[in-house]
């Protein structure tokens, strides 16, 4: 152990953990009617921590515990992103928790713990650390997805998630250990060096890599490791669905990006095509199956499976440009999905329905929600003036620049397919008329806080689509850190930076 570990660099993590405990504790003292306070405390706490973290870690670049734990701008970016996602989910959950869930204290505290896990995933510089933070995140999500205790589906989702999650963690761990056996280390940097040293790929390495891909693929919900996703998305409480779709995915990609860029880059030639193939399969499968869905959550689940395919392109292309593209797409994806999911949450809060035909005539009943959903869906489909257009354009350009034009082509076709089912929902909202009976003509009210979150996300979607440069500048900073520690780039230098 190196003695001079700069523990102070972990302050943000400590603070988040502390916040979680604070909320757990506060829960005992807050009257049931006033549980809202907990949400505000959680959100405000995370906001304060963000405000503290950014200046605190801005120019730090260090690795703690002999490279186990990184403190760099890449990690910082994801820390802030994670906490931002946490705030959004907490505020977005407010009314949902109020009306449909019990135990709000635990709910918010667990979300904060999971934020901590996400922060750690992006910072991990070693496989076991990565595994541990990943498990921490998973545990939180297992609980959260089953949080609607009275809902059979929530329970079913939770069971499926936890059993398959445990199974996948078994695969991942076995893979990690095999890699350890093959390369003699679990540090990313060391793995890269060892990979460059080894002439061929032996059985251990191969099986180990395949298992790691399977384990991570589960987390990312890449085909064919995605099968839990639709069920869990559908069963989990609505804000948690959003959280899984966005937060868990962002963290998993943060980890995957670092792993592939820092540890596995030397074997680029071996895995590029594989990841590209997986990406293609994922985007096609996700989008094609989404077409035939009738439940909006399930449709969005498949849609986000499809999105994973797009994101995987960023890994398959492996270039500075591609990593930037992946991250900006991730940001755009997060904002956009939140806009859609929270708007659907608002609808569900008011009506308790979540099948696509239930949205008929929403444009008349709740113009704001309909507009937000439309903005989000159009962005997901990659239409202009919205985040999705720019980020997809970026991502596909980056892929093409690395000779993966075919993959970009597949992705564009997949986007086209996705447009079809997005339009089905939009058609319900704008073209179909609301059913006359069963209160179909009742206006759907959206509480102020939720409306604010939805509005902010929709606005973010638009802003990112109109002028993405500031976000991109930040991302360039962040990936610079990734590349500093990364090993030699197999294909090209930093052209395009």
């Amino acid at each position, binding site marked *: 152990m190196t003695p001079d570990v700069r523990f102070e660099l972990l302050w943000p993590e400590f603070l988040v953990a502390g916040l979680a405990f604070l909320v757990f504790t506060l829960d005992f003292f807050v009257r049931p009617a006033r549980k809202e306070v907990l949400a505000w405390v959680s959100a405000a706490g995370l906001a304060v921590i963000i405000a503290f973290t950014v200046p605190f870690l801005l120019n730090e670049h260090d690795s703690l515990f002999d490279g186990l734990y990184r403190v760099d701008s890449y990690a910082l970016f994801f820390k802030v992103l994670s906490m931002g996602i946490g705030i959004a989910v907490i505020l977005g959950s407010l009314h949902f928790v109020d009306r449909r869930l019990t135990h709000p204290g635990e709910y918010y505290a667990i979300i904060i713990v999971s934020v901590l896990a996400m922060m750690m995933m992006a910072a991990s510089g070693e496989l076991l650390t990565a595994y541990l933070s990943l498990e921490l995140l998973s545990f939180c999500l297992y609980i959260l997805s089953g949080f609607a205790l009275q809902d059979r589906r929530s329970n079913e989702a939770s069971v499926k998630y936890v059993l398959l999650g445990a199974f996948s963690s078994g695969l991942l761990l076995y893979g990690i250990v095999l890699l350890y056996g093959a390369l003699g280390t679990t540090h990313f940097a060391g793995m890269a060096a060892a990979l460059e040293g080894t002439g061929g790929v032996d059985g251990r390495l191969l099986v180990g890599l395949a298992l790691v891909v399977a384990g991570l693929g589960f987390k990312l919900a890449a085909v064919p490791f995605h099968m839990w996703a639709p069920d869990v998305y559908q069963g989990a409480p609505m804000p948690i669905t959003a959280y899984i779709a966005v937060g868990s995915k962002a963290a998993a990609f943060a980890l995957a990006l670092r792993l592939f860029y820092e540890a596995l880059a030397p074997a680029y030639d071996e895995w590029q095509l594989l990841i590209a193939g997986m990406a293609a399969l994922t985007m096609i499968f996700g989008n094609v199956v989404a077409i035939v869905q009738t439940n909006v959550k399930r449709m969005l689940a498949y849609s986000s499976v499809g999105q994973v395919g797009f994101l995987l392109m960023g890994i398959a292309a492996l270039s500075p440009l591609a990593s930037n593209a992946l991250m900006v797409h991730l940001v755009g994806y997060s904002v956009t999905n939140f806009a859609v999911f929270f708007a659907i949450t608002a609808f569900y809060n008011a009506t308790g329905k979540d099948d696509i035909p239930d949205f008929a005539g929403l444009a008349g009943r709740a113009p704001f929600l309909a507009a937000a959903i439309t903005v989000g869906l159009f962005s997901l489909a990659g239409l*202009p003036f919205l985040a999705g257009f720019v980020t997809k354009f970026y991502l596909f350009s980056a892929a*093409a*620049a690395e000779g993966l*034009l075919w993959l970009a082509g597949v992705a564009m076709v997949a986007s086209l397919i996705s447009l079809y089912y997005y339009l089905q929902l939009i058609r319900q909202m*704008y073209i179909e008329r609301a059913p006359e009976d069963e209160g179909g003509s009742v206006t759907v009210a959206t509480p102020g806080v939720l409306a604010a979150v939805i509005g902010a996300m929709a606005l973010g979607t638009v802003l990112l689509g109109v002028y993405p440069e500031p976000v991109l500048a930040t991302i360039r900073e962040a990936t610079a850190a990734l590349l500093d520690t990364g090993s030699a780039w197999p294909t090209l230098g930093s052209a*395009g*930076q």
Partner: protein
Amino acid sequence: MSSMEGALLFALIAVPFFGALVMVFFPADKHSLIHWYTRAIAFVGLVLAVYLFVTYDTDGDLGKYTVDFAWLPTLGIRYTLGLSGITTPLVLLNAIIFMAGVLVSWNVTHRPKDFFIWLTLLVSGVYGVFLATDLFFLFFFYELAVVPMYLLIGVWGSSTDFTKMEPAEGPGFGGGGKFDRPKEYGAMKLMLYLVAGSVLVWIAIVAVWAEARSATGEASFAIASLAAVEYSREFQVIFYPFFMIGFGVLAGLWPFHTWSPDGHVAAPTAVSMLHAGVLMKLGAFGILAVGMVVLPEGAEAWAPVLIGLGTVNVLYGAVSALGQRDLKYVIGYSSVSHMGYVLMGLGTLEVIGLNGAVFQMFSHGIMTGLFFAMVGIIYERTHLRDITVLEGLGKRMGVVGAFLAAAGLTSLGLPGFSSFVAELLVFIGTFRTYPLLGVLAVIGAAITAVYILRLMAKVFFGPISDRWADLEDAKPLEAAVGAALVAVLLLWGLYPFRIVEIIDSGVKPLLEGMGIA
């Protein structure tokens, strides 16, 4: 070009775009305010476009950069706008059709706010495509122009159900059999088709960008710098079809045209006008200003295919129109046929042919706008578009009939109307390159005469039924729109010197840039 004109170009896009955004905050039930507001936006655009057209300096070069703003430097994307001899008339076309479309939409009372917001956004997208000189933004606006279409058709459109119609008497009104075309189908097909086309374009854009980046080491989406790169012939031959077919889908290129009649038929009047009048031109414009400019060798290699498909368009569209029984379907297929001339002109890769193609874009835009405006009036009054049922309307709707006849005569290439000149130039270009196809194109114009006159004779001539005893003719506003459009057609038909001079000033440098002429 001065900074003043740069500001004008900027305003041309910004006024409708931000105008639409501002409209979001209007109270939805103030219909009159919304109508007048949109008219004002359209009028501003018209004034700007006319000013730019009138003052256009034909001695300049292709693509005058006037607005330049680094937007996403990592990829080399800049927000640059410019005006060329090719785009100047097209911008004017867009302004005219938008103005006309807004005016004839006086009867939109179902959610007019949403309608005009989408319509205005669409128009700003069209302006953007014409003015953008950066490929990214061109594509950006291209998509923007397509997207609102779905809702515009889906919400405000009308369905056609041939399964409920009585079989037509007499030959030739088969209309392609009994089938049902709900507006949602038309809207969805149109949307998916156009986006599918843009996917191809997108692939090609990205491929060209990546190729240029690896050749020059510099990332740029500026069309001019992309065009300056020497791509290998193989690359060009592979990727030009992506542009050609991708943009061609929007231009109604056979066999990717079927979205167009179905879409036009389902769309509300103003949208049909803008769509057939302007939007389809975006496709042809894209082939010209992107495909040919960036990949000239590819364009040369594929020119025979393009011109051949264009000929198929001409004949196939015309013969198809012959068999239709729905007024709007006739015009929809006529658009397919007329866009064929544009494609043929592009396929000639020859200065006169290209002049003709661009002029035909303008001319067909105005003409088809007039068509749809008048058919819209008929439909609004009679709630019918079935040619086999309508008869003798000329007695009651003389003005509408006259304008429709003017559009029809333009469409069959009657001298005095601008389409004649445009088609003549296309014919000349074609005769110089592929004389046999030129012959077919001229024959296509004759078939046009058959279906147009057949339509006129059926719908407007003959004895009128008592059913239409109190049918109302065009209102003054509608008549004014019709008269204005006819005046434009006549103006450029009788004395096309100026407009062709402008177009020529854009076409020549373009061809020089391609290494032809």
